[in-house]
């Protein structure tokens, strides 16, 4: 069938073409409706793709029918099908929620432009994930990054600090992307190809080459900046804290995950983790940094008053978990990374959506402003608690599944101290989640604050879809673990 043959390209082309259309749509509702339709379409595409590759195969799509070394190839296997599902799924769930939130936070005459930037961001993230061409990754990365800077800056109507946050993000993001493209250039220099599958074939004999080693360093540093690997995370807390609620939901759940995917792809597919020079980098650089991120991110989160910034710091800690799994380079470690990539999107999506609801009703998301709010917005805060429990890793939530695999990976290596540190970081999460719960449930509401109603149903339903997904995939982890298993086999098994 024609549709099925071209799903891979439609996934990216439809949001890309919808973006300029969206600029021309008048009013506030049409741009939103178009973005919603496109998001749902991409979700259908990624479900189709995941269904086709979950057994372990891969789909290759040649752009313009040019065969790979000449043309650009889109290649979908289990890992990027999963990331595509995360990106398009979060977007599809967040868009029904978006309408009111965006009406509240964005100037009425700029909705068309806002949704255009959003569509471009979606295009970029999907493109980075699906493409099988190293330079193409850079191009899509910049499409998504540039539109992200615009989206973050759109928060300036509520708080001017969004502008300085967007500027910092722009400078650091550009440095990161430029490092990445420099790394890709070095790889092209020695291999003469940009196709990821070709690179993977041609690199092993060149493992001793200084150029290849430099390329690896540039790619890791560049992607480290983009995915906010400690200590390259400084752009993240303010960008998440001052961006409009929808943008924070979408970015926190997807943008860093896509960068984690690119790093996974380069470390495990392009270079291959058994390269002599990569193992020490993982063990002596990425692993300690991941542990520091886990602990430091959680400690700083405890001391935050702004709740969005609190969960932004918690994201840095959670990225630490993902990097830890990646650095352990074992089957359980990688399973943990892949699972956490998916699971963290569910938790942070739910948490930031709930905070967006608080923003809508109260206009501020600090610990002080949510005092006593749980009795007025019971559904919102119940979902917030579920997200928080999942963040901590309580059994029965998705957070438990990925942390379980991570601790398993540490114990398999016999590193008990590491396993203890993972548990300690989870306990730190208990503290900051408890601070929020205590303020919302146990403290009395301030006298001078007006009573508010709970979020409207069109915002509550998406929130609860994500909150229940946190529980669903925590109890029935079959789907996610089987995909993760396929991914791990591809990374550690037959591939070089």
């Amino acid at each position, binding site marked *: 069938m024609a549709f099925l043959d071209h799903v891979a390209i439609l996934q990216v082309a439809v949001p890309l073409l919808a973006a300029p259309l969206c600029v021309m749509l008048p009013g506030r509702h049409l741009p939103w409706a178009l973005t919603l339709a496109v998001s749902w379409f991409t979700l259908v595409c990624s479900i189709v793709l995941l269904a086709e590759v979950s057994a372990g195969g891969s789909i290759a799509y040649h752009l313009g029918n040019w065969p790979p070394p000449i043309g650009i190839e889109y290649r979908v296997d289990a890992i990027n099908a999963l990331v595509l599902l995360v990106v398009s799924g979060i977007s599809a769930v967040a868009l029904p929620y978006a309408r009111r939130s965006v009406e509240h936070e964005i100037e009425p005459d700029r909705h068309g432009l806002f949704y255009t930037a959003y569509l471009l961001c979606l295009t970029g993230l999907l493109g980075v994930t699906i493409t099988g061409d190293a*330079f193409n990754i*850079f*191009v899509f990365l*910049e499409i998504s990054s*540039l539109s992200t*800077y*615009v989206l973050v*800056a759109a928060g*300036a109507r509520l*708080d*001017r*600090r969004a*502008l*300085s946050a*967007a*500027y910092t993000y*722009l*400078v650091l993001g*550009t*440095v990161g992307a*430029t490092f990445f*493209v*420099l790394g890709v*250039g070095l790889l*092209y*220099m020695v291999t003469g190809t940009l196709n990821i599958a070709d690179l993977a074939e041609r690199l092993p004999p060149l493992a001793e080459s200084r150029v290849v080693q430099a390329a690896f360093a540039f790619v890791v540093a560049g992607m480290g900046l983009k995915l906010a690997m400690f200590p390259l995370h400084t752009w993240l807390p303010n960008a998440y804290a001052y961006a409009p609620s929808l943008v924070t939901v979408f970015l926190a759940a997807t943008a860093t995950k896509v960068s984690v995917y690119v790093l996974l792809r380069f470390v495990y597919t392009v270079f291959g983790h058994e390269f002599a020079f990569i193992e020490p980098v993982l063990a002596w650089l990425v692993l300690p940094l991941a542990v520091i991120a886990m602990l430091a991110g959680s400690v700083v989160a405890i001391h935050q*008053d702004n709740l969005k910034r609190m969960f932004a710091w918690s994201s840095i800690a959670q990225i630490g978990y993902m990097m830890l799994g990646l650095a352990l380079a074992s089957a359980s470690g990688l399973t943990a990374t892949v699972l956490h990539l998916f699971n963290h999107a569910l938790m942070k999506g739910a948490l930031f959506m709930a905070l967006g609801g608080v923003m809508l009703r109260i206009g*501020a998301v*600090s610990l*002080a*402003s949510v005092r006593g709010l749980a009795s007025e917005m019971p559904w919102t805060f119940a979902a917030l608690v579920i997200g928080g429990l999942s963040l901590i890793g309580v059994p029965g939530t998705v957070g438990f599944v990925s942390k379980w695999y991570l601790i398993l990976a540490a114990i398999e290596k016999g590193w008990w101290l590491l396993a203890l540190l993972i548990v300690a970081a989870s306990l730190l999460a208990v503290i900051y989640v408890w601070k929020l719960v205590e303020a919302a449930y146990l403290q009395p509401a301030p006298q001078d604050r007006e009573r508010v109603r709970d979020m409207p149903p069109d915002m509550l339903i998406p929130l609860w879809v994500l909150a229940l997904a946190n529980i669903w995939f925590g109890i029935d982890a079959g789907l996610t673990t089987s995909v993760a298993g396929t991914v791990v086999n591809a990374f550690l098994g037959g591939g070089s």
Partner: protein
Amino acid sequence: MPEAITEHYNYWLVIFLLMAGLFVTITSGNLVKKIVGLNVFQTAVFLFYISLAKLEGGTAPILTGEPERFSNPLPHVLILTAIVVGVATTALGLALVVRIRETYGSIEEAGLQEADRQDELRAAAEQGR
């Protein structure tokens, strides 16, 4: 060792520009100068891609039938894309600087951080009431 420098002087230039651009981006306190630094940094990468495509005596890759040496056209095309990305980044960065100037009244990083800190304190004071 001198040959390593003279034969590959273009790469040394690239390294110098990379470092100079990154240095300005990190150390300059002026937001516009940071963008300029970023530009130099990106330009160094353009130069790098172009140099690796160049062959001594190579011409444009037009097939004339005679045995000829061609420069590799692919990096040139890639860099056209990268230049577009660079222009977009610069434009967006400068647009942000304009907005920052309008709202903060300063384009110095120090002034910005001070203003952000004041905002923070004011927000804390309001909640403490």
